[in-house]
């Protein structure tokens, strides 16, 4: 608590007068500067996206033209139709969603369980086990790829989502670590009170810890979703049938050797596939990030 007591001991220089020390002015200025920077940032971010859009609207010949044009003439909206009907993207999308959402829900929950254990409960050897959790992140997955594939082949799990989903639902080190860091910020007092009332640790986790961890759970859930939605190597190895493809394997269908890749179609399809997660994020972030102001820690 050293840092905080310092803060509380801090006494401001109230002698300074004028506009700069005016709280209202300060707040207004910060908002104005922040808004400006936000707009600037969006402009920068939008450059690559604009490029994607521009490429997606070009004919194949125009996409190869040099120097490249920013505004394609004519704009070939038909590309979107071609890109999305040349492959069963509806099915790919359904597959991706089922896969990513299942993992998101179950992994976030199981990670929250373990995170609570590591953050709040005392047990001999806990530090060592936690180091073990971290250690699983440290070995590059490329090296367990073949042994793992062999294992799932022996189990008869190939060409299904089992090897992509089932190992994931018991918790992920990354999420456990992140949630643990958050949960350690929750004051102990709540649990003490509940314990005295005879509540079990499980109900403390469910009734107190989870609601207080909402913003963190939201972040973990979104990150988990994105990771699996964008996962490429896993499906590449484990999925064979075309009708089981997730979106990321579907996008690969536009690639070709010797510069034959159809960039215009690739970009059109990519843009469409990033839309759903973006829309979901737009609504989810209100719930997760802004929602906690109500449920948030009241100190």
């Amino acid at each position, binding site marked *: 608590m050293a840092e905080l007591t310092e803060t509380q001991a801090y006494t401001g220089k109230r002698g300074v007068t004028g506009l700069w020390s005016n709280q209202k002015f300060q707040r207004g200025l910060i908002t104005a500067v922040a808004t400006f920077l936000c707009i600037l940032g969006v402009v920068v971010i939008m450059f690559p996206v604009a490029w994607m859009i521009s490429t997606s609207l070009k004919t194949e010949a125009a996409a190869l033209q040099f120097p490249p044009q920013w505004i394609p003439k004519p704009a070939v909206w038909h590309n979107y139709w071609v890109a999305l009907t040349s492959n069963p993207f509806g099915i790919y999308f359904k597959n991706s969603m089922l896969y990513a959402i299942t993992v998101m829900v179950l992994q976030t929950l199981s990670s929250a369980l373990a995170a609570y254990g590591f953050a709040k409960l005392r047990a001999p050897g806990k530090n060592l086990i936690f180091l073990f959790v971290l250690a699983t992140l440290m070995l590059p997955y490329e090296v367990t790829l073949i042994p793992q594939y*062999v294992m799932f082949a022996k189990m008869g799990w190939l060409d299904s989502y089992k090897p992509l989903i089932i190992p994931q639902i018991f918790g992920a080190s990354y999420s456990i670590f992140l949630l643990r860091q958050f949960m350690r910020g929750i004051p102990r007092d709540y649990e003490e009170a509940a314990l005295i009332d005879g509540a079990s640790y499980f109900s403390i986790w469910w009734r107190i810890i989870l609601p207080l961890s909402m913003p963190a759970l939201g972040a973990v859930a979104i990150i988990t979703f994105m990771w699996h939605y964008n996962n490429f190597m896993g499906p590449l190895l484990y999925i064979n049938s075309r009708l089981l493809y997730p979106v990321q394997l579907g996008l690969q269908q536009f690639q*070709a050797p010797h510069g034959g890749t159809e960039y215009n179609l690739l970009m059109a399809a990519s843009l469409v596939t990033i839309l759903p997660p973006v829309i979901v994020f737009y609504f989810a972030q209100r719930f997760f990030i802004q929602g906690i102001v109500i449920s948030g820690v009241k100190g």
Partner: protein
Amino acid sequence: MNGVWSRRMTRRDALKAMALGAAALAYSACGAGGGGSASGKIRLVWMVRNDPVENPWERDVVIPQFEKRNPNISIELLSINQDDIAVKRQAMLAAKEPLHVWSPNWGGDGFGSDRVRGLLQNLSPLMRRSHFDTGRFIPGLLDIYSANGNQYGIPQLTVGSYTIYNKKLFDESGVDYPPTDWDDESWTWEKFIETARKLTKNYGSVDKGQYGATVSVIDNDLESPPRIWGQNDVWPKDAFKTGFATHVTCTDERSVASYQAFHDIVFKEKVAPSPAIVSALANLGGTMPSGKVAMEIQGGWDLWVLKGQISDPNGFCIGIAPIPFGAPGAKLRSVTFTDPWSITNGLSERYLDASWKLVEFLVSPEQARIYMEKTGTPPAQKELLPDYYKIFEKCMKPEDMKTTFEGAFTHGRESSNHLIVKWDELNQIWSNNFDPFFSGASSRAADMLQTVEFQTSNKLQEIRAEWKPAQA
């Protein structure tokens, strides 16, 4: 396509799974080969590369027609990015997952490595048994994929390297087209540069620049520039047959001259775009497709990549010409690229027979024709060639096309990429030396090649020591 997997044991209890998980590796070492059940339908796994042009042929033509003709065989198509095939195939092989028909040159490390690893089935007995007609292939092609008298692959497509040119740019500048005959000795390197100079405009300007020519080490094959200067002994004589070598020779006068010329064309002659511009064009889809380069010495895959340009009203006509003589008497100037079908070694007889049926079907004159027409890739079979030339009729007279196209086979050799064992490790050395050399204005070929020769020879000896015994 879903049903075929249902034969697998899909449900095991968790305990068994757990035990298996820990013991999986031990299994992998001595796992059961072959794959598939003893009775019922045969399920063949056919691995191809992702390609929006090729895939419809495989999916919509080959599979339905083949399955109709062979009702007891079903085909599962695995279509994977060429760059990612290596990972998938290694994993499948480690797990002894069924994989039957594929091309060693699509992804992975190429034919040479796969043959030496014992991965490829000897097809000769099958060919004898079914009286396979070898006479219909372009002479010499089958030989590329044979070793010690055994055939390990059947060619599906082949193409040489050429001076590919943009006819529109030639017409605009009123420059004569290059010759068509590979033995026309007037087509010298000097003539090539001179032609390029007439076609170069606004050199160095990012948006208005037009370039007379561009050259690069074709497919990064170390030997390709020296060949143009008549140096055919970069590799020891038997290297392409055995897949191994103890050294390369590239510090001789002709090799140095060739690399220096490839460098000078940018920095001294200033008729070729700088590496930055080349990568700029390549990032968009290719140097020739951009329409900003008049001539390019390159593998002939532009023939099918650029096929669309011919019919595009804003496009341009392409032509192919021989690669110029760097030095008089340099005969073998072309690098050829031939992709074969192969069958995994060690299959059970039923699966081997079925796989051979598929390969025979794929290279049957009928399918080879459909493949050629659908994809625009050049066929490996003689009798299809006249029809292939007709595709380019609008731009080149078929007889001229014939002279140049076929001349590449009599005046060239297969790429080392397909034949030298562990070529990728050598490629890594070459890339890392070529890139700084070609982008440095003052770099000297002699210095670069010295390093390359030393490093490559060392690596070759390492590879030989590691892999040669395994061949027995």
